[in-house]
Each structure stands twice: as C-alpha cells, then as structure tokens.
C-alpha cells in the first residue's frame, strides 16, 4: 500500500507541474486586444474583425498582410456579427472594422454618445444597392432598363412562391432595404418574397439564372458574384432635388411614398475602437489612410470565395500587384 501512496504522490506532483506550466504558459501569449508600447513605434498585436461576407474577408486580409509586411504587426482576426462588434470595439476587444455599411443607429449610440468607437472615414469602396435582372433577360426585354418597363409585365416573373403575381426576391433581411414599400409606391404587381440570408437568396436567383428563367431581385455592388454572373440593373426613380428627403431604410415602416426613389450610394466606413485610436500605434495611421476601390475588393473577394483561394494568398497576390497603392498607406 505504501508504494501506492508514493506513486500517487509522484503522479499528483506531475499533474500539478503540468497544470502550473500550462497556466504559466498562458501568460506568455496572453495578448488579446491592443497592447502597443508607449513609444508609439511598435505595432504589437491588433485585432481586426472580419464581417460575414466575402468582400470583408478581402479587405481584412489585405490590411492584415500589409500591416504584417510593413510594420511587423501581429494581426488577429475575429468574426463577430455586425452589431455585437460595436460593443467589442467599445470594450477594446476589437481594434478595427474596415467595412461598415452605415449603421446610423449604432453611430449615434457608440460614436456620438458614448464615444467608445471612432469613425475611421470611408474605405473608398462604395456600396450600390438596386434591382437587378440577368443580362439575357435585359437583352430580350430592353424595356426593363427602367422600372416603368416592368409595369404590366410582372407576371413574367411568376414563381411557385408568388402565386398569381410576379416574384420580387428580397435581399438578406439584415441589409438596408425598402423594396416592399417601393413595390407599393410604384404600383407594381409584385409579391415580395424573402429568401432569407444572402447565400439562400443567391441560391434562389442563381438557380433561376442557370435555367435561363426570368428573375428580379435585390442586389448590390461590390459583390464578387458580379464577376461570375452577367447581371443588369433596372433603373428606379432617380433622386432629384424634389425628393431629396427620400429614405432608403424602411425599418421604421410608415408611408411607402417616402421611399419612392433609387437607393443612395452607400459610403462604406472604417471604424476604430477609441482605445486603438488613442494608442499611437503606427497601424492606426496606416489603416486610416487605407483605400480600396470596388474593383480591388471584388477581385480579391472573387479569388477567395469564387476560386476558393486561401485569403492570405489572395491578399498577398493583390498587394504584390498594387505595391504603389499599398505604399501610400504607410507614408
């Protein structure tokens, strides 16, 4: 029995040693968030948040590889959902979001009121939302160039979901939209059908596209699928001085006529955590200067999501081809 006691002691000691060592090792690399040195020269570790779509993967990995290359930063990437990430920035757990599609409610709460998040200015990519149809359909029906051409031809877009009406396939419910109200305001005989999250919507319209059937849907640029599918846009009533109060986000509902115009161009913003902005990190200056065009972003996104290339490799390739652009961010 005594030998057993001894053995127990040995094993217990071994286990304790393992545990202590494991805990000890946790301190070495426990460096989440931003801990730049006071000198302001050292980049240290910083955390970027990748949003759930391919375009965001593209710009996040471009930033990651550029910062690693030029400043020797350690970049961590999180994948937190669009709204919770504001709180993450407020708490300093995420340093930057590079592609934010105008969450004005959150701007008011976190930037203006609490001051825990800082506006980083436009990324250069401009979002454009609209009504799209396949190019082959536009070729057959040139009158679809504007929304008036749809009038009376709605039943062409009939589908199992829409009954006797034509189907308008709505966008991801999390995106800014007003199509239900627009259909009403324009007096069109469409049934607004939601396909749900973007992948489901894409699956729906691309299935009809592949069958060369008519389909009308909410869509936007920059989007890598635009390089894969030949789409054409249906013009909505233009924005003029007469309707300059026209709204885009029908979240609050109300009178449909206040939404009766095309979608405005969406300026895509970069956002920083206040802590990161005040840290004096050289990465902050670089990210502030970072600019991309729609084309840049779509190209890299296509390589990642369309051609299944590794995000790091796709970003590195783009950086190699666009050295001068990238260099400008670091001057």
């Amino acid at each position: 029995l005594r030998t057993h006691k001894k053995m127990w002691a040995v094993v217990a000691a071994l286990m304790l040693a393992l545990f202590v060592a494991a805990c000890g090792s946790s301190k070495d690399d426990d460096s989440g968030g931003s801990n730049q040195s006071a000198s302001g020269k050292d980049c240290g570790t910083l955390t970027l948040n990748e949003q759930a779509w391919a375009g965001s993967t593209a710009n996040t990995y471009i930033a990651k590889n550029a910062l690693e290359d030029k400043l020797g930063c350690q970049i961590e990437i999180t994948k937190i959902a669009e709204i919770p990430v504001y709180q993450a920035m407020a708490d300093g757990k995420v340093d930057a979001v590079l592609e934010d599609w105008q969450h004005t409610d959150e701007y008011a709460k976190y930037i203006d009121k609490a001051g825990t998040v800082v506006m980083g200015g436009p990324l250069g990519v401009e979002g454009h939302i609209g009504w799209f149809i396949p190019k082959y359909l536009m070729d057959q029906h040139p009158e679809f160039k504007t929304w008036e051409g749809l009038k009376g031809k709605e039943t062409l877009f009939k589908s199992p979901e829409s009954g006797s009406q034509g189907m308008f396939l709505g966008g991801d419910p999390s995106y800014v939209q007003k199509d239900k109200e627009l259909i009403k305001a324009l007096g069109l005989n469409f049934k607004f059908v939601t396909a749900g999250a973007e992948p489901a919507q894409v699956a729906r319209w691309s299935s009809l596209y592949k069958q060369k059937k008519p389909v009308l849907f909410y869509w936007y640029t920059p989007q890598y699928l635009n390089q894969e599918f030949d789409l054409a846009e249906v013009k909505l009533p233009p924005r003029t001085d007469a309707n300059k109060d026209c709204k885009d986000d029908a979240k609050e509902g109300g009178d449909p006529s206040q939404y009766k115009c095309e979608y405005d161009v969406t300026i895509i913003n970069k956002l920083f955590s206040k802590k990161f902005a005040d840290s004096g990190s050289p990465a902050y200056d670089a990210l502030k200067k970072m600019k991309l065009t729609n084309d840049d972003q779509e190209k890299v996104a296509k390589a990642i999501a369309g051609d299944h290339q590794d995000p790091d490799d796709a970003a590195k390739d783009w950086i190699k081809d666009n050295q001068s652009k990238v260099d400008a961010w670091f001057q």
Partner: protein
Amino acid sequence: MAVASGRLRAPAFAAPTSRFRGRGAQAAGIVALLIVGYLLWKKDYSWPSSLAWDQLPRKLDKAQDWLLEQRTAHSNPFFAVLDAFRAVCDWLVTALLNALEWFTWVGTLAAGTLIVLRYGGWRAALTVFLAFVSFAVLGLWEESIQTLALMTAAVTISILIGVPIGVMAGRRERFYRAITPVLDAMQIVPAFAYLMPVVIVFSVGPAAAVICTLIYSIPPAVRITALGIRGVTPESVEASQALGATPTQTLLKVQLPLARRQLLLALNQTIMFALSLVVIAGLIGGRGLGDQVTSGLYSNPALAILAGIAIVIMAIALDRATAAIADRTDPARRQLTDEGRRRARTITLGTLGLIAVIVLASRALGADAIYPDQFETASTVYDANIQDTVLGWFNDALDYVQDPASFVFGITEPVGNFILEKMLQPVQNLLMDAPWFAVLACSTALAFVLSGLRPAIIAFLMLVLIGVMGVWEPSMDTASQVLVATAIAVVLGIVIGIWAAESPRVERVLRPILDTLQTLPQLVYIIPFIYLMPVSLVAGVVASVLYAIPVVIRLVTAGVRSVPPAPVEAAQAFGASRMQVLTKVKVPLARDSIMLGINQGLIMVLAVVVIGGLVGSGALGDQVARGLQRNEFGEGVVASVAILALGIALDRVTQGRRKANLGGGAA
C-alpha cells in the same frame, strides 16, 4: 411483408375506443368550421389594431439603450459582480485552451484517448481517438480544440449551477413547478434574441459565448437531475430516515448515489445541448468551429458543412465517451474486491503517468501546440491534412445539385414546388386569412376536445397574448409552417417508426442516422438544403422535418414495442395477418406514444423556426434574426415571446389527456 390472407373481421378489442373516435370526429368538425369561416370572410377580419399594444418593442429598445448607458457610464457594483463572473469564465476557457495547447497536439490526442480508455473501455477510446484524428485530417484541429475548451467550461459551469437546482427541484415539488416555466422559456426563446444584451453586459469573447450556452444547457441539467432524485424509491429514503439520517446525509448517501445514472445522463445531455449552441457562439467571438459555420455560410458553404461535420463528430465522440464511462464506472455493476481495487488504482496511476510521459516527450521533441498544416522532411513538404480535397468534393456536390440539368435537381425542384404550392400555401392562407376570432375559437375548442379545460384556457390566453403583442399575422404564418412540417414529420415518422419496431435490422441501420440528425446543430442542416431546395420556405420546412423526425420515430418505435403481447397473441390466434395485427392492434394501442410523438414533433419543429428565418421562412423567425442583425432588439424579443406562446399553445392543443410528464421539454 406478409400479404393479408384471412379476411376475418377485426376482433372487437382491437377497435379504437369509442371515445377516441368521438374526439377525432369532433376535432375534424372544428377544423371544418374554421374552413367555413375562412371561405365566408376571407381576409375580412385581421387582428384589430385597437386590440394590439404596439409600443412594446420601442419600450424594450429603450431598456436596452439604458443598459448600454449604464454599462458605459460608471462602474457600479452590479456590473462589478457580472464583470467578475465574466473574468472567471474568460479565465477558465483560456486556461483550458492554453493547457491543451501546452500539451501539444500529440499530448492532447494521447490524453483524451487514454483517459477514456481507462474509464470507458476500448470502444469509446477508439471513437475519441478517431474523432481527434478526423479533426486533424480535416484541417480543423485548432478550431476543434477551441470549441472543446469552450464546451468544457460551459458544461462545467452548467453542472455546477444546474445540479444543485435540480436536487432542490427533485426534493420540493412546489419549487419544481415554479421553475418549470422558466426552464421552458430558457430552452424555447431563441438565442438570437438575447445575444445583444449578453454582449452589452459581458462584451464579446469566450465569456459571452459561455453565458449564452449556459442559458440553453442548464435546463436539461436541472430537469434530469430532478427526475433522478424523484426516481429514488420512497422506501430507500424512508429507510434512511428511519435509521436516523439527517436530510443532508439522506441526500448525499442515498438519493444522489441512487440517482447516479440520471446524473450522468444529465451530464451527457448538457454536453449535447451546449454543443448545439456552439454555432451561435461563433457570432459573438466564441471562435472555434462555430466561427467556421457562420462565416463559411456566407463565403464558403463547403467549409461551413465541413465544420458542421466536425461538430457532429465531436458530439458523437463525447456522447459515446460519457455513456461508456457512466456504464463502466457504475458501482452497482462492479463488485470490487480489495485486490481488484488495488489493480484499478495501479491502472489509473499507470495511465496518468503514461500521459505525463507522452506530453513531456512530445514537448521535448518539439511537437507543435496545434496540429500543423504541413509536415516537412529534409527534402519535401507534405500537406498534413486533406481539407482542400474534401472541400473540393463538397463544392462539386453543391455545384451538382444546383445544376438544372442534373438528376437530383429533377427530383428536388418538383418536390419543393409541391410542398410549397400544395401544402404550405393552402394552410398559410387558411390561418392567415381566416377571421382571427375563428382561429382563436377553433384552436381553443380543439384544445378542449383533445386535451381538456385547463389546456384550452392556456392555449386561448397564449393566442390572445400573441394578438395583443401585435404579431398575430407572422405568428399564424409561422404556425402554418410548423403544422405542415410536423404533419410531414409525423406521417413519415410513424411509418418509419413502425417499420423499425417490426424489424430490428431497420432499427440498427437507423440508430446512427437518428443520432447524427439529433446532434447536428440546426444551422448546419440548413446549409445543404439552401442549395438542394432553393425555393424559399421549403428549405426551412425540410430542415425542421429532419430535426423533428428522430424524436417521432423513437417515440413511435418505443410505443409499438411496448404493446403488451396478450392482445397481439389473441389477434394472431384469430388468424389476423401481420398487417392486420399492426393496423388493428399495435397502432391503436400505441396511440398515446404516437400522440406524444406529434406533440414533441411540434415543439422540435418550432425550435428550428428561427433558423428557418435565415433561409426565407420569414415570419417570426425572420423577426428574431433581424432583432440581432439590425439591432431591432424590441421586435426580436416580442417575436421570441410569440414563439414561446405559440409553442405553449400548440403543446396544449396536442398534449392529449395524458398527465403532464416530468422531464418534458426537448429530448
């Protein structure tokens, strides 16, 4: 199957009781009335706005803003306590993760396998070993380890909180009844609804993920523990009291040991429930496999499916391991002599020693903390995993099912259209366009006829609550989808369930399939169906059918199996064919189980509704999802409460006259 030969009249005892037949006729009559109401006043009476209180969402939004301001403003003692809790959770997850990484991948693999080998036997150990190997081979080692650490922390805390509450609930009937609605709410209210408040209070990261998981995984721990404590025979408790034991002694020495199996089942179920929330955790910085699923869904569906498979593998391995350990360490089954005990101790020591040696050796030899992407030898570099190849297959498969010229598409498209046009839309029209008072009256009457007075009152109140919250129409939309999905699940489930009850071979084939279906996180279901059934609404319905069907099949199989042999033998003596025995004797006698199957099926289907919102089911699920994605917190909460109310109403209508059974909830 045997062809009916004798054309004997069915014996009297095999006929369903007249009461049931009467109830069936009454129910049909009520539905007919509803249809008449629909035909008379189509779209004429939607829920009147004067009876709806639409300020509720805005009030809730204000409450959330207030919470945010409190959190940002100053440190107050309330948040200090919560911060401390957060710190503990964060520390626990990080420490576990660091420990696993410190072990190196070789050490982790060895430790997991050897511990299960020691306590659970070689079969379970083999499962665990293969699970680890598959994580490595699929290139998801790091993510799997992160998920494992998160899970372990969440399950530990769930057990620490849930078991004491469960013990209390098991000993005090009134306490149990008081917390049951809370437990129901915790399980039915979708995580999407409370994600944002949790993030405001606990920020993002492992702690928030653990806390969200806790909300979902504590209820089964409480329920099953309570069930176990109650299951201890009163004789044992009385005997110990007669011997002068204090209540604490009775608990520790009699009740807990005798409830051992249930306690281990509680652990097992807590793990399963926690795992199903891993995907949601990905949305708030929980990292791991959940991350891959949520972001993969948008930019790389094949990777999302792969990560989903890894989650299932983890679930199966953990399930087998805990079940095997529970079985093998059951003291009732091993009468240990002193000699045996000493040997067991030696083996334990040997195992621990071996683990320590392997860990230290692999560290000394420079094994990586996580499984590497590539192996390098002097001359060449090998890929260490086959992720790219597997993703290639998945992408090919996804392309194939979406190709209009493919064989599969020729089946899925008409099937999808049929479900939509012939099943969903008629029911949707009926419930959404019929006058609200007709729907309300008929549902209440149905609940009265099928289940009794009390359930009828509760169903009525729940439906009124839905109307007052101003979500009558989306709720009816959701209800129609739930009804259609349940109908499909029940019909298929009864057929397959009876078949499995009759043929052990079928059951053996089905078991692993049902296990997989039950452990697969709900979001993972949806992904393939988005591509297989692109017609909106249908993907959600098909996914809910698959989610609900295992429960229905299991209940039906168990019900048919438990039919006493006497009536069966009697029927056979009368010369009834196998088919006749089945339809005239077994099925009628298994009626209660089948009714329970319908009831549980409904609840399971309802659980997928929110996820369905992500793939075009619209209605309440959509509203909940938007609550998080567009920060319409109030709307999301209202929709969640409506889902809960709808769940209770549907439960009451279909619960039948059986007694409310303890341990209810999702299986």
